[in-house]
């Protein structure tokens, strides 16, 4: 991929899936493995049919014994061998069903995670800076797994148990046509009852989950804040609060238990057995059935037991899976609306930045930035100061078009950023975020992340300029130290210097540094000061900072308050014009 092709675009050739709705999407993934689907369905059918053979053959054995027509022993042996053999074959088919579903499930999990990941890589920076990582992670792990469970055990059990409902309907009529009535009626009524049951259950399980969640979060919050709780002598109040929450959990559990306790299909099953028995005895007395037929028929009716129990679990698994699929699809289908503007300006950047009456808001309701105007010459260092939520970070994200301004203009080198080729714009702007993410790889690889294949000499030079060399050398394996391995963790200040070293390697024209690390000791502070000063040399640098020293010596200071510029100028000017500014420099 060349550097100039659109950076926000990343695609790999993949078979297209149907992303219209969760059901179609899951289907399009599952049916890709049609041969496994066939194995699963054939296995499920064979499993159910051979399960039905047991009562059928047993019935035959009863008839054999009742007829008492000699050679009983040989006849019984044949039947026994048939039963044993059919059940071994049934096991093979059931394994086919189980493992077939399992393989589909695993393949689908792998494929949709791949699809999700490729889609995420193709999303714009805007998307990624708005989308919380924890949420994405939950979808890439939990939700993807839920879709796996949708197939195995979900679909596996639904297909498997449906066929168990079908078999009595298929085989009962061979004894007498009218025997189809009970299993057929049961099946129909069963679905109505199940639907009602699931519908009633849903709000209650939601309530159980919610009340438990509330209890759990409050509890862990109270325990994490135990020092405050004890310090404020609020133990009794907290216990009362907890008990209140625990009581709600109990109530929800009782409600769920009550509903589950009167699971109607179970009652229907009992009635169906009675009616079936009555029916078959009646036919027997009419001379229309033999003893073995009654035995076989009862055995067939007993097959209904399996779907009666299993379906609750199987259907809820499927609905959980579809919910997971919906969340994944939501994420993948979310539009990101920045255009790449490949035809745009793509020249060398000098680093002049100008904001003209820029307004920006994430949502209609609250403006994040209002009428911000300033101009920065190439090579200048700008300190951006303000309280959390004053719009500092958003301001900087307009420069590389992570977001587009909703009003006014942002210009780089006199060209509106929207007229720049997006790739060229971003290639020459580097942003070091407040939370610096390092990969669990070697320090060398982390430094060279933006320039893979950089030689070790280049890497070390960059690290030295970023004042990182000293602490890296203190590790046993130096630049080959893998971060996160064997307890190697880096402090905020060290991470920041690794990130600065990255910037030295990629040498951007504009550097944005979100600097909120605090140095615990003066020696580290000296190092950080040197590193930042070196990074700022020769390029336009924006520093979002709390450090008085960075503010003091910046070429331009922008003080933001509630999204507006509260004060702007050089230190000396601000000392004279702004009381709020002046007082922070007073001891």
């Amino acid at each position: 991929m060349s550097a100039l092709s659109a950076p926000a675009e990343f695609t790999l050739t993949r078979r297209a899936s149907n992303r219209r709705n969760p059901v179609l999407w899951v289907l399009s993934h599952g049916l890709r493995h049609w041969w496994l689907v066939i194995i699963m369905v054939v296995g499920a059918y064979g499993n159910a049919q051979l399960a039905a053979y047991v009562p059928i053959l047993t019935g035959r054995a009863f008839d054999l014994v009742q007829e008492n027509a000699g050679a009983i022993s040989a006849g019984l042996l044949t039947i026994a061998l048939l039963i044993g053999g059919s059940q071994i074959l049934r096991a093979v088919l059931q394994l086919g069903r189980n493992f077939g579903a399992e393989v589909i499930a695993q393949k689908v999990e792998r494929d949709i995670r791949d699809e999700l990941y490729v889609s995420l890589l193709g999303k714009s920076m805007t998307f990624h800076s708005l989308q919380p990582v924890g949420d994405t992670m939950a979808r890439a792990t939990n939700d993807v797994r839920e879709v796996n469970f949708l197939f195995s055990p979900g679909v596996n059990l639904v297909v498997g148990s449906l066929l168990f409902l079908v078999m009595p309907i298929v085989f009962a009529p061979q004894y007498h046509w009218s025997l189809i009535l009970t299993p057929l009626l049961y099946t129909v009524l069963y679905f109505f009852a199940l639907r009602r049951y699931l519908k009633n259950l849903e709000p209650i399980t939601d309530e159980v989950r919610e009340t438990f969640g509330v209890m759990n979060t409050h509890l862990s919050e109270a325990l994490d804040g135990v020092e405050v709780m004890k310090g404020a002598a609020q133990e009794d109040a907290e216990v009362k609060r907890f008990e209140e929450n625990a009581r709600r959990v109990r109530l929800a559990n009782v409600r769920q238990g009550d509903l589950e306790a009167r699971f109607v299909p179970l009652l229907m099953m009992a009635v169906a057995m009675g009616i079936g028995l009555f029916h078959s005895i009646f036919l027997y007395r009419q001379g229309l059935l033999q003893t073995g037929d009654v035995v076989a028929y009862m055995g067939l009716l007993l097959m209904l037991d399996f779907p009666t129990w299993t379906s609750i679990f199987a259907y809820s698994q499927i609905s959980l899976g579809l919910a997971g699929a919906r969340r994944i699809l939501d994420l993948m289908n979310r539009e990101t609306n920045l255009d790449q503007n490949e035809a745009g300006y793509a020249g060398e950047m000098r680093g002049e930045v100008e904001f003209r009456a820029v307004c920006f808001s994430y949502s209609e309701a609250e403006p994040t930035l209002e009428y911000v105007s300033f101009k920065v010459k190439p090579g200048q260092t700008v300190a951006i100061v303000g309280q959390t939520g004053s719009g500092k970070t958003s301001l900087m994200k307009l420069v590389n078009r992570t977001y587009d301004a909703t009003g006014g203009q942002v210009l780089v080198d006199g060209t509106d950023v929207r007229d720049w080729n997006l790739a060229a714009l971003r290639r020459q702007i580097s942003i070091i975020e407040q939370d610096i993410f390092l990969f669990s790889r070697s320090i060398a690889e982390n430094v060279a992340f933006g320039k893979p294949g950089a030689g070790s000499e280049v890497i070390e030079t960059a690290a030295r300029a970023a004042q990182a060399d000293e602490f890296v050398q203190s590790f046993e394996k130096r630049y080959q130290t893998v971060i996160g391995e064997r307890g190697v963790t880096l402090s905020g200040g060290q991470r920041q210097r690794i990130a600065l070293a990255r910037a030295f390697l990629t040498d951007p024209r504009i550097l944005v540094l979100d600097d909120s690390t605090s140095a615990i000791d003066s020696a580290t502070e000296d190092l950080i000061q040197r590193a930042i000063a070196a990074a700022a040399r020769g390029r336009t640098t924006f520093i979002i900072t709390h450090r008085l020293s960075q503010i003091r010596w910046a070429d331009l200071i922008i003080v933001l308050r509630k999204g507006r510029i509260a004060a702007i100028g050089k230190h000396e000017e601000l000392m004279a014009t702004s009381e709020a500014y002046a007082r922070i420099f007073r001891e």
Partner: protein
Amino acid sequence: MGFFDELNPEKYDRQYKDRDLVKRIAGQFKPYRKGMLHISLLTVVMSLIGAILPIVAGRAIDFLNLENELLILLAIPGVVTFVGVSEWGLNWVRRSLTVRVLGNVVLGLRTRAFRAAAEHDLSFYDQFSSGRIVSRINSDTNDLSNLVVIVTDVASQVLQAVLLGVVLVNTEWKLSLILFSFLPVVFGIAIGFRRLARVVTKKGMQAMADVNAAIKETVSGIAIAKNFRQEMTIFDEFDTANRKSYRFNIQRGFVLSLIFPVLNAVVGIFTAILVYFGGLSAAAALVSAGAWYLFLLSLDRFLWPVMNLSAFWAQIQNGLSAAERVFALIDAEPAVVQSDRQPVEALKGEVRFEGVSFHYGENEPVLTDFSLTIQAGENLAFVGHTGSGKTSIARLIARFYEFQGGRILVGSRDIRTFDLQSYRRRLGIVSQVPFLFSGTVAENIRYAQPDVSNAEMLSLAKRIGDGDWLETLADGLETQVGERGGRLSMGQRQLVALMRVLVQRPAIFILDEATASIDPFTEWQIQQALHLILSEATSILIAHRLSTVKAADRIIVLEKGKIIEEGDHDGLLLKGGHYATLYNTYFRHQSLAYVEQVKELVSK
């Protein structure tokens, strides 16, 4: 069903005897004796009824040719329906009763466990992470009470099997023997599969954790990879992890897919054997056709209890471990012991340490023979390296930990004679990472002083930089702070924590100052709030900010639990001793002089 439950119980060293645990668990159910009695009775009745069903169905075959048509047509289906319906009805009643009794037991246990946790001192929290305590209070209590469900379920199944067994032996002992000989085989297979499943699960857990970690890392790294346009590199890393996950899951899936087919095949073979030998016996008129049928129907009712028994012991052990964890939490001895519970109405803020010695663990003395007097109204700052004992001194004053030797007097009274809750109401404590509870800003401010009015809060807030900080909150005092205060910035959280102390008007103020960096405007407001408190209370400051040290009346320099220097900022700095060294290490870069020098420093 239980078969797959508890495949991977954690190793846990048990301290309590099983018998004591069982006794204590039984004790939890004592208040619900009546309910438990009903549940047990229902369980027995249900087992009896359950055993009747195959017997009646078996009999039915024999009665098919009875003369009395009406009887056979009504009685047998009638009994079968009646049995099924009453099983359903009794189960309903039993389940409803159980869920209530268990709900009450769990509620009681949870509340008691939480009260115990709330009353433990902080040394307890050093030993156990709050996550572990949460799981003891919320899930272990549940597992403990579930023991009852496990036991009644298995007991009812076993009872039913035994009843049936007696009937079977009385019917035909030879066929019974054949049937019983199947049971150890099924048990063996079930145990074998549990082992196998445990192995694959355990192996899988580690592999799964690795894969999940890799996926997590690659997901978190997307943004940075895009920043540097390294999509392909990170995709390769993701792809490797994703494929590995697939390979591993397929293996595990195969083992788990195998279990039921194997069991079904075995049961099928057993059925064949029973059909054959039963048929022979029936043909030889040793048994009736109905009895033969009874044997076939009984097979299932023996196999399920056997399967469940294979997992029973592990489940019981697991439940007992859970019980032990809950009881250990409730029983844990408090380290902080008060000799009296005198109420503390008004308190003079004088604090005196007399030969105090203190350690966290046996071999790590923090303070030895430590003496210090803090005058009422004095502002005292402690400085020193990490581990010098600054925080410990503050914690002892708050009585969060027990000290081992000497005395601590507060307002000339022994700290051990106080009623702790009433004593702590006179203290205002702000910890290094200020902690807020989810709720509004106002709720957090009045956390220690629930009767403070909004007007009072507002007038106090106004005294801090003209209340500017309240204006920057979206809804002022009514702003939701989010879980653990997460929706507020660090600086705002500190301001709220200081406000909490301000409305409380404590006699003694203990501040473990934050090290996080805060924007200079908020920092200025925090200093304002701090000065308001300092002027009103005896203050014990663990200082990290230069301005705070400077504001102190007296600075105590600590090293390894000893006072090595004391005085005020200017005097100590002039002296050029320990404090001057500490100043150069921790505070120099916070001074305005440093800000002025930086330009030269970096150009060097």
